């Protein structure tokens, strides 16, 4: 009898010919997530099993952050042997008032059919516990999973992970991370669909503080377990913002800033081979997130800008931020570059032509070049 951790996946099953590739990817990602633990990871049909470990809860916590995993169970592993299984089940002691047994017989050579075996095991539990059977809503379910590889897994708890797809091998995404609540959640959401991302942050020192920058680095480190991030780029937008403020129509300040951010992100995509840009924008949340504003920022990108939160309400975003542990950092009171130089009446329906006309008032190419020249790259490892 061994104690093991059973890992199940769901969407990978739908991958047809690519299923093997995705399982290998998931296996590797689990290996990375568990690199600080002593354990072995084994592939069995349609499951992964972690064994020979010493910190069960620690491993489960880390597995919950690996995308592509549907659910996890702490289980006991036995051979597919009726006597062995019955002996184990007869020793189970339950505190609950009701229970049921659920048997899954993937190994069709196992001599007893699922329902019959569930009834036999149920009787053993009834014999040794003060408990009743409740088929519909039992307090405890004893799961018995009889696999094709000759091993049976017995467990009573299914811990759900985030499902989704395993993070890809290459870091294809560039996440625009501010100090706010939304962008870490956006990074998490795209990572859930397998997009590995590095991080780009814009600051406005001396108008923003070093603490604001530290806060974003903390956020980056907090989400890298999801996003697989390795590098963080920090760009100073101060000169650009000052120029916009002095020379351009201030109503356009935020819009022009967003366009510049996307331009900088495009240059980094080109240089470091990212394929897409991720932002935390949500439709209509602020003036810079109206359809018209998004259209004017989209006009300067050749890489797709993914906005996973576009349809999310703020409270939905906050719920996820709390769930993934970024909320408390995000609400620390430091200004980010979007909140300094904030115009009193930012334009809600900007036009591409007007934005271009405003940009002609300054030496935009030179200023963007300066941003790129002075970029700071931080390793998140």
């Amino acid at each position, binding site marked *: 009898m061994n104690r093991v951790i059973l890992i199940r996946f769901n969407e990978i099953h739908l991958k047809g010919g690519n299923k093997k590739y995705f399982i290998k990817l998931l296996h590797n990602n689990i290996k990375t997530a568990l690199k600080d633990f002593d354990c072995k990871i084994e592939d069995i049909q349609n499951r992964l099993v972690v064994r020979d470990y010493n910190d069960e809860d620690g491993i489960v916590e880390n597995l919950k952050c690996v995308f592509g995993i549907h659910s996890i169970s702490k289980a006991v592993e036995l051979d597919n042997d009726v006597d062995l299984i019955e002996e184990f089940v007869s020793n189970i002691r339950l505190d609950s008032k009701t229970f049921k047994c659920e048997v899954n017989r993937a190994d069709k050579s196992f001599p007893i059919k699922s329902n019959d075996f569930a009834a036999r095991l149920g009787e053993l539990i009834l014999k040794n516990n003060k408990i009743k059977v409740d088929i519909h809503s039992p307090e405890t379910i004893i799961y018995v999973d009889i696999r094709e590889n000759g091993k049976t897994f017995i467990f009573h708890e299914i811990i759900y992970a985030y499902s989704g797809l395993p993070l890809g091998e290459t870091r294809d995404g560039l996440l625009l991370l501010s100090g706010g609540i939304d962008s870490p959640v956006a990074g998490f959401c795209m990572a859930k669909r397998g997009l590995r991302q590095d991080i780009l942050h814009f600051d406005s020192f*001396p108008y923003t503080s070093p603490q604001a920058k530290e806060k974003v680095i903390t956020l980056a480190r907090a989400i890298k377990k999801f996003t697989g991030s390795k590098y963080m780029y920090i760009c100073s937008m101060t000169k650009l913002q000052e120029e916009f*403020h002095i020379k351009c129509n201030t109503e356009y300040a935020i819009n022009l800033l967003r366009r510049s951010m996307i331009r900088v992100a495009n240059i980094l995509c080109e240089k470091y081979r990212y394929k897409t840009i991720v932002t935390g924008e949500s439709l209509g949340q602020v003036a810079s997130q109206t359809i018209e504003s998004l259209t004017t920022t989209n006009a300067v990108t050749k890489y797709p800008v993914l906005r996973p939160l576009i349809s999310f309400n703020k409270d939905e975003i906050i719920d996820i931020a709390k769930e993934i542990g970024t909320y408390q950092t995000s609400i620390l009171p430091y200004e980010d570059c979007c*909140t300094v130089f904030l115009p009193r009446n930012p334009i809600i329906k900007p036009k591409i032509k007007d934005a271009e006309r405003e940009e002609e008032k300054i030496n935009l190419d030179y200023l963007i070049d300066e941003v790129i020249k002075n970029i700071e790259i931080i390793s998140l490892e």
Partner: protein
Amino acid sequence: MIYFDNASTTKISEQSLASYIEASELFFNPSSLYKQSVTVKSKIESARASILKFLKGIAGSTLIFTGSATEANNAVLNSSITRKDKKYIISAGEHSSIYTTAKKYLEAGYNIEFAPLTKNGSVNINRLKNMIDKDTAFISIIHVSNETGAVNDIKEICRYAKNINPNIIIHSDGVQALGKINVDLKSLGVDYYTISAHKIHGPKGIGALYIANKNKFKPFIFGGEQEMGLRAGTENTSNILAMKTAIDNLSIIDYHERKQTIIDNLSGDYILVSDDTCVDNIISICFKGVRGETIEHMLETNGYLIGTGSACNSKAGYNRVLSSIVPKEYLSGAIRISFDDEVTKDDCKNLAILISNAVKQYNKRIN
């Protein structure tokens, strides 16, 4: 780097650091019985006596070493705020270690009253006197304001309060007063007085609480019998001896000329909160319509470090002390300059010019 943020903390002096290192060799637990421990214990007691003498404590008074001035202030409130039928008064200008703790007692249902401030940040003494009555059990007034450098007349407050009720317990937080003005606890008449080492070129992680009558003090931290049973925990010998050295080396320096140099070279629309009656080493200035934090960072890039009197942040809110005495449009532009003898008159002149330029630049770029 030229450092103008000494009210926040100071650089440890060579002498204090030497004491710290030397004392680190004396690692023996002062409570043990062998000769080495007796030696350590005796050095600690000698430091205690020396600091008490410096502070001119009354006969029978004592001093306990704490992990910080914040701990000492918390210990005083914990010992003194005990009954819900009594009145406890603190000033609106107290350091957060008093103010926030007092607010907790207020939330718990104790009768805490806050004495208002005058324009320079000192307590409004007439209003304070009107608040003191026979039900008043405790008063805590900061000696020198950490925000503005305003000096409170602790002697007069003690005289007046004890006249109404001799049993009133009076505490003063002397963290910013020590080394800046003459501290004579016997003459002041306080029951408790808090000091800190790291504001006077000593090490961080140590404060001390003067206790006039140890029978009235109820301990805050329990455990061993260290510090006469008034504060448990193995003594921090290195910090204690380094603090003593820092105090031995204190001398009151006349900073008036340097303060005046800064004021003379400032330009822009500002309110000088720290008037002539404040200590000269802390200057609180509030510029209209700018963000103090940005000014601080602009100076930082020029190698000058100053403090902000305000977090000047919409989320964090304005500085608590200044917001009761400065008009709103000046609040976000609060800066605090605080210096020691290291800075020269030229440094002060340069600083004032840099601040004025930064404000001008800010107004040009943002306003």
